[in-house]
């Protein structure tokens, strides 16, 4: 069993598992941190951005000044943002049989895989994952396509040139594989390959393995996966959460007794407690708005935003902010808010029960109803006329490189009254802000990551007790900035195996057993034969606890299923012909010769030989056993652990005699 690791990002995994003749891709996350190297895409022409000076080499060579721009000491690529794809060279992705998706954040690379690699398999995901994943992709495509950029920079990617660039461009990995965003057509095509599944649904893959999604508690429809055969079980834990937020709680019990547990998608901010961060978020929001400032929250259109809106719903009245407008701007804002209300079966128990009252599960419905929360597809249109300040704006993209957020950054960045509050943990807020420097507005970093932290992982592993744990290399040592925090790493026994991008791991996994069925489906006429086959199994105990039985049958293997069938019946003697001897008729009968087991005690064997008239016996010890030398008869009996040879020249009688003496010491069945 092998694991091909195609992504180096621990929370945006993309791994391929080869297991029992199946090739299963586990998630296909898209690393979008590469976009931080690019200049933002302003929705309306930004004089500041367009007038940034071009970058030139130390020696004054300015051949890159069209591609690279300098802003407050940082260098950015002036081009359409590109994304870092999963590794495509490590394994032929056309051989991937299925792709299992854990949550909507971990499927953003799907169009690249399904549309450009010859992939012809099936993708499995839950319905909310697909629907919200579609919204995220749609928003992404929309953000990028609506501000077409003629220029496409590629010169800087040349390895020789990249070496000359300042950090972080110099250190960016695999830049040659960075790709532009996919199109909506590709998205639709990719999504059409998805087959919807429900929690605990068992899906057979070619009869070899069974895959099952389990609730992971992280997001609407988010799942962990169990991949199991009859005797092996692999658990794949991706983004999971034990906190009580809106999704269904995590199913931990089903992860028990795994041979291998692949652990990815832990919290990116292990030192930040989500509750504390929500408190910070609310406090800073209130503080800004009370001072007459605006609050900008760069966010994804789904996920934590639901929880934030719920917190604000409870908080705004107490903070005296009831009359402050909240705006949610995204091409998919409306769909996201509405979808969240209809996935009742995927929600936590409290929210599920609301549906039967009937009430909308999320309180943002009431915020919308009372006009406290308004949503718009974009800045243009109704928003411009409704817009009043001070206000709170939720909009994307959290990288601050594209989307409506770019406009608000340009608009509000100059005033210290305003605040940008970062809640999404996927991007470094300092890097995100770099092209907006100098910036007067306040910046608050309140990353809210509800995924498992190391304490929870430690408890989880104690609970489910997998034989082996496999995880990204980032999880087996404390973060570089906090090397003393031994609590910020996975601590389990045996130590977890780690992987990194473009690495192939042989998982410590021995397949020892296969399930073989005895004619599971037989016609009534064959039932008797089948019973005969079963009846023939008479186990004999050869050691305490170990029984053996012999069986003579034909083994059929098809679709990874092994079936024993009765041996073919002897051909009926045709009339008129001379009846042949049975031995000639069924050659298989030779197989019925008894099987031998046991060992030969040399001393007793020698005594027996002596009893039977052999003299002048000499015994030699060898590395593998003994050699009994019958000097007179010029015969050698070589006794080894798993074989015994009688070597005598042309004296078949003697050989048979000796053989029979040897056989006396062995058990037969």
């Amino acid at each position, binding site marked *: 069993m092998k694991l091909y690791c195609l992504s180096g990002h621990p929370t945006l995994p993309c791994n391929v598992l080869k297991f029992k003749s199946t090739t299963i891709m586990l998630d296909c996350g898209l690393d979008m941190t590469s976009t931080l190297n690019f200049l933002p895409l302003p929705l309306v022409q930004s004089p500041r951005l367009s007038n940034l000076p071009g970058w030139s080499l130390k020696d004054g060579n300015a051949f890159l000044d069209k591609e690279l721009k300098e802003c407050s000491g940082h260098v950015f690529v002036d081009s359409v943002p590109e994304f870092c794809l999963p590794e495509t060279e490590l394994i032929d992705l056309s051989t991937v049989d299925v792709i299992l998706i854990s949550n909507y954040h971990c499927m953003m690379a799907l169009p690249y895989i399904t549309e450009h690699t010859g992939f012809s398999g099936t993708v499995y995901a839950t319905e909310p994952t697909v629907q919200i994943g579609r919204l995220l992709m749609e928003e992404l495509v929309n953000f990028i396509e609506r501000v077409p950029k003629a220029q496409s920079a590629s010169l800087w990617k040349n390895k020789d040139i990249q070496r000359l660039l300042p950090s972080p461009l110099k250190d960016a990995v695999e830049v040659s594989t960075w790709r532009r965003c996919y199109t909506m057509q590709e998205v639709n095509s990719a999504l059409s390959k998805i087959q919807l599944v429900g929690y605990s649904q068992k899906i057979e893959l070619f009869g070899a393995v069974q895959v099952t999604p389990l609730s992971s508690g992280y997001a609407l429809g988010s799942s962990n996966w169990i991949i199991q055969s009859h005797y092996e079980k692999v658990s794949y834990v991706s983004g999971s959460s034990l906190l009580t937020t809106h999704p269904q709680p995590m199913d931990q019990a089903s992860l028990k007794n795994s041979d291998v547990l692949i652990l990815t998608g832990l919290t990116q901010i292990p*030192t930040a407690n989500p509750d*504390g961060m929500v408190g910070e978020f609310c*406090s800073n929001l209130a*503080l800004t708005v*009370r001072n007459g400032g605006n609050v900008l929250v760069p966010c994804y259109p789904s996920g934590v935003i639901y929880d934030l809106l719920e917190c604000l719903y409870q908080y705004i009245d*107490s*903070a005296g902010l009831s*009359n402050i407008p909240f705006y949610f701007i995204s091409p998919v804002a409306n769909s996201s808010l509405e979808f969240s209300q209809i996935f009742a079966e995927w929600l936590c128990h409290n929210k599920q029960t609301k549906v039967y009252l009937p009430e909308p599960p999320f309180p943002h419905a009431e915020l919308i109803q009372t006009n406290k929360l308004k949503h718009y597809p974009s800045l243009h249109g109704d928003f411009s006329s409704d817009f009043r300040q001070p206000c709170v704006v939720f909009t994307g993209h959290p990288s601050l490189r594209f989307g409506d957020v770019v406009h608000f950054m340009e608009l509000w960045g100059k005033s210290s009254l305003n605040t940008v509050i970062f809640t999404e943990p996927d991007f470094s807020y300092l890097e995100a802000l770099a092209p907006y420097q100098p910036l007067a507005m306040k910046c608050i970093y309140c990353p809210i990551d509800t995924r498992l932290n190391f304490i929870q992982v430690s408890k989880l592993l104690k609970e489910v007790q997998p034989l082996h744990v496999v995880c990204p290399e980032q999880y087996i040592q404390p973060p570089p900035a906090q090397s*003393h925090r031994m*609590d910020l790493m996975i601590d389990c026994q045996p130590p977890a195996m780690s992987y990194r991008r473009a690495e192939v791991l042989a998982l410590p996994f021995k397949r020892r057993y296969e399930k073989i069925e005895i004619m599971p489906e037989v016609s009534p006429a064959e039932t008797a034969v089948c019973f005969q086959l079963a009846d023939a199994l008479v186990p004999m105990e050869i050691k305490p606890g170990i029984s053996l039985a012999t069986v003579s049958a034909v083994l059929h293997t098809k679709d990874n299923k092994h079936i024993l069938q009765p041996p073919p019946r002897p051909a009926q003697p045709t009339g008129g012909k001379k009846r042949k001897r049975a031995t000639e008729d069924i050659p298989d009968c030779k197989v019925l010769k008894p099987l031998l087991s046991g060992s030969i005690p040399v001393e007793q064997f020698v005594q027996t030989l002596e009893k039977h008239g052999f003299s002048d016996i000499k015994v030699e010890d060898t590395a593998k056993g003994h050699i009994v030398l019958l000097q007179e008869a010029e015969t050698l009996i070589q006794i080894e652990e798993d074989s015994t040879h009688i070597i005598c020249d042309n004296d078949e009688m003697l050989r048979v005699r000796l053989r029979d003496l040897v056989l006396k010491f062995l058990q037969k069945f």
Partner: protein
Amino acid sequence: MPAGPSGTSHRRPCEGDGPVPPVWRRPVSAPLSLSSVPKCGARGSQRGLPGTLRVSRGRRPCARPRRARDLASPGTDRQTRSRPRQSPCPPQPPESARPDCMTEGLPAPSAGLAGISGLTMDPECSQLLPALCAVLADPRQPVADDTCLEKLLDWFKTVTEAGSSLLLLQENPCLVELLCHMLKPQDLSSRVLSFSLRLTGVLAAQEDCFQYLQQGELLPKLFGEAGPLGGAAWTSPAVRSGWIQGLRSLAQHPSALHFLAHCGAVDTIFSLQEDSSLFVASAAGQLLVHILGLSMQGPAGAPPSLQAGDWPACAQKIVGHIEESLRATATPQITQALNVLTTTFGHCHDPWTQVLWVQLSPLVAGLLEKDPIPAAHSLVDLLLSVARSPGLSSSSCGLWETLAQTLSHLSPTQAGPLALGILKLQDCPQALRAQAFAVLLQPLACVLKAMAQDPGPSGVPDGTVGDSMTAGTPLPSKAACVGLLCRSLAHLELLLPLPQRPCPWPQALLLGAAVTLLQLCGGSARPACDMGRHLCTLLLGCVRVQRAALDFLGALSDGTGPRELVTQVFAVLLEYLRSPDSSPTVLKKAFQATFRWLLSSPKTPGCWDLDPHALLFLRDLLPVLQKRLCSPCWEVRDSSLEFLTQMTRHWGGQAGFRHALLASEVPKLTEQLLRDPESYVRASAVTAMGQLSSQGLCVPPAGPEHQGGQQKSLLVELLHILSTDSEGFPRRAVMQVFTQWLRDSHADVAGDTEQFVAGVLQVASQDLDWEVRAQGLELALVFLEQTLGQPRSHCPHAVTPPVEAPVGPLAQALQPLCRVRLFDFAFRALFDCDRPVAQKSCDLLLFLRAKTASSSGLQESQSSPNVASVEAALQRWQAGDQAQPLGDLEPEVVLAVLRSLDLEGLRGALAESSDHVEKSPQSLLQDMLATVGVLGENEADCY
């Protein structure tokens, strides 16, 4: 600060609840005769159905301490009672209930002594007693409430303490009959049996009564094998407890000792030490101590022998038992022995205790040889008890050596309390003190060592970093580590204010340890070694340690420390105040510690302002405070406001602080919190705003709703809260602020004080919360003092214009009081159904009367029609009809009414607890009988 959530309820009790004493000092006109004044109590009693039995539900055992709330809010405690009309003859027990052999074997009571009985028990009770005894002896009559039995027993104790028990028995033969009745095999309730045993003990405490009961063989029968001890009733813990307590009361004289020895009670007590009921086991231990002490007293006048071999047999038996227990292998037995010894040394300081200790100390020391040491906690208690005993000369009996040995043998967790106890001792060898202090410091030193970059923390006293917890050995589990650290911090904090605390005090070490601990818990510490990293993992995010360390750090602010350490202290406090992960309780403690450290920061001579470092810190602190004032967690907003109030109170007048505060958003945010949805926060905001306003640090309200409109003054805003807030806490806070403002002649108030006071009193008088009304009287008193020129006792630093003594005639001085309707408010409060309000009003009026008595020049108009109408109105008020106002009062009328009221009498009556009327023993007996009677009626109703 307003009262916390534990404050009294806002429910206004029913008017007329409970009896109110007559208030008229003398009848001023015919209708005002004392008997004609309707009483609230009378009104209340009318609610009971005449002729039916109502039993007081408010009365509970005397043993139970009255709850603070009962005392604070008497109106809620007043229960109307009506009792069955008792016929002149008390009910006699039914013939069937009378035992045949009640007085069998006892000498006949002497009739000649009956005349003295009045000294011990009043005739009414004596009359009721036979019926009650009959009820108790009758198993068919259940005693509904065993608290009544407790009260009854208390009463008997009082009676026997005041007089002769023998006389009591002789005068009330029913008591003996009751006790005899207990010996009959019947299905008696264990409560009554237990009561009887205890009553017997109380009676037999006097030797003559003991002899009297002995003659009838009653005592051996009750306490010996023939009594409950050998019967089925013994399975009830209540009976066993009654048996022990009975003997405890009885064992007061040598005859009792003889009795105990004779009936084999001591052996039973030994076995009861292992009783399954903790109460019984504990009482058995106490009884053993008592018997030991009694037996060692010996015959009167003869000091006990100092040779253990010459001790009385009973004492020797007990000591032998203790010795045997100390040699036992089972920990419970050792614990019992140690507890008995601890009590003995704690209560008795006679010379023989030293002999006892000398005899037993080798056995106690022997416990230290065992591994693990059994009953370590009890051992520590014993050693400390011995060490504190003035009867023992510690140096001569090897106690110090034993203590030192124990300190070194016990685990750090067990040794902590012993070390603290040793350090609290007045005279103790220096070496032992050093050893004890090292034990307390050890966990902290260990933390410092684990975090030190270079080996060996500086400033750690020699021997502090012990070997058990540090070098090489892994730290204990998280729970053990946290427990040890918290205890260590708590012990050191207790030690901090004591005069006998170790000297030199390692202030720098302790500061460093507290800071390090906080850094470890907060995740900001950077340990250099594996042990430090392990410690970091154990303590990360541990709220218990955070709280303990912050408390300790706050306590350390009384001392000084190196500048760099103080900087670290402020840095770590700021880290905690900033951290989004600080829990509300941790944050509150961080605020408290911060305030204490700011208070202790060095001051520039001659200037009360904060020092430059503290001011720099303040600049970092205020943004944090701003954010905390906006927290979604109300506890955080509340603590932040409290902190702000404290800071403003101390530094509100100082330029540096004022400048920093006014430059921040804090005052504006505080003003907004006046409208917080949480009442506690509103209350804290009111207090904070009152303080800010007093210091001139208030910004005019400019909330969103005020934009563009006319800005309201804070006074108007607070008045609005006082009259409209649905919760009591903010209203109480407003009253406190207003009172303070009046005292300080706040600018908003000084402009038109009379209007202010009139407005506030009018609103306060209507308030449903008694604390608001009481605070209204406080404000009225301040106004009264100011008007009549009482020298101010409050707020010596307040800058206020001097109040001139009234120069004009008294009437002129009283005019402002009449104009603000102060008397209307005070008279109304006089009849308030809540006792503290009435008391306060009484005090105020008494104060006024005293003031006016010395003044001359004002003639009372006693017979004026105005006075009569006022008095009539007051009568109606007292009767509960407060609808009619008094109207405009003239000073003369007020004075006349004031003098006609029996205010002293009222104050005396109000000073009594609300149930004083029902506290008499007669009432108790009636209640108990009534309970049975009610039950009987119900039975009859069933048919």
